[in-house]
């Protein structure tokens, strides 16, 4: 009994230390909401593209034909999206992945001009003027990027995929998906 009592402070320190290690982990973002859609089919909505463009929009029937596809939620009013657009487009080319877009709560002409200026690397874009599709996708802000495997959502990245840390996190997730398939 005495021995057990004597060990209590040590046990407490180990438990506390474990919590601190977990809490101080730089990769842990306490504001990150886990997506409820992981492991589920992408929302069934078929979205038309931005007026003025001629791609086929965001269609689950098309996206699900790809073994792995990326769906990037963006808006012309979103500053981080502007920073992300170039590197993400390049990443999709480098990794040979189809990149789709979900244009969230945007105005047609503003979105059109934004793509004119920065280049349109999306195979298809869903125009979500009202933000309803965004709710179906369970998004909390822009940008967000989903990795889909045969139309099933397997990963969500919150925030822009720009810079070393975010790019590494995204590539780790992508490689994990590839390794598992």
């Amino acid at each position, binding site marked *: 009994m005495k021995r057990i009592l004597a060990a209590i402070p040590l046990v407490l320190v180990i438990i506390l230390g474990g919590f601190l290690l977990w809490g101080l982990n730089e990769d842990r973002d306490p*504001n990150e*909401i*886990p*997506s*409820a*859609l992981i492991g589920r089919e992408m929302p069934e909505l078929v979205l038309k593209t931005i007026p003025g463009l001629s791609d086929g929009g965001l269609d689950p029937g098309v996206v699900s034909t790809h073994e792995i596809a990326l769906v990037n939620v963006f808006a012309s009013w979103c500053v981080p999206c502007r920073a992300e657009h170039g590197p993400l487009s390049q990443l999709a080319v480098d990794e040979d992945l189809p990149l789709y877009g979900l244009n969230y*709560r945007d105005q047609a002409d503003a979105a059109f001009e934004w793509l004119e200026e920065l280049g349109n690397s999306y195979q298809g874009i869903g125009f979500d003027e*009202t*933000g*309803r599709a*965004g*709710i*179906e*996708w*369970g*998004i*909390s*802000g822009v940008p967000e990027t989903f990795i889909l495997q045969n139309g099933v959502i397997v990963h969500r990245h919150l925030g822009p995929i720009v810079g070393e840390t975010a790019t590494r996190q995204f590539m780790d997730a992508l490689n994990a998906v590839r390794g598992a398939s």
Partner: protein
Amino acid sequence: MMAGAAFAVEPDEILDDPVLEQRARDISANVRCVVCQNEPIDTSNAGIARDLRILIRERLVAGDTNAEVYDFLVDRYGAYVLFKPPVNTTTLALWIGPFVILGIAAVATFLGLRRTKTKPETLSAEEEAALAALRKASDP
């Protein structure tokens, strides 16, 4: 309800039916804004909070029960969006954890107190004799 709760809900969102509107307000107060995470959508000015408030009202008008509206939101955003998460296997630790810790603390305190309770010591024979001698000496 919070006193400042009326500021974010804009006039064009409010339903004509006061009963439905009150239900919408009650639900909104319990739904976390996913952008500004410690604020309910009822008081949030974020665009997505407004979208969700309007969506909740549309569903109530369409005849959804409160539970169906919550299910709709949880289905897309997870139990995280509820300020009062449901009791299930994943949230069990959240709900009973504090009581378990309280119980452990109570048991530990009880055992600790019982240990320190010392029995009154009886006097040895020599002490009894000395005490008797003193009593006798002080007797007039």
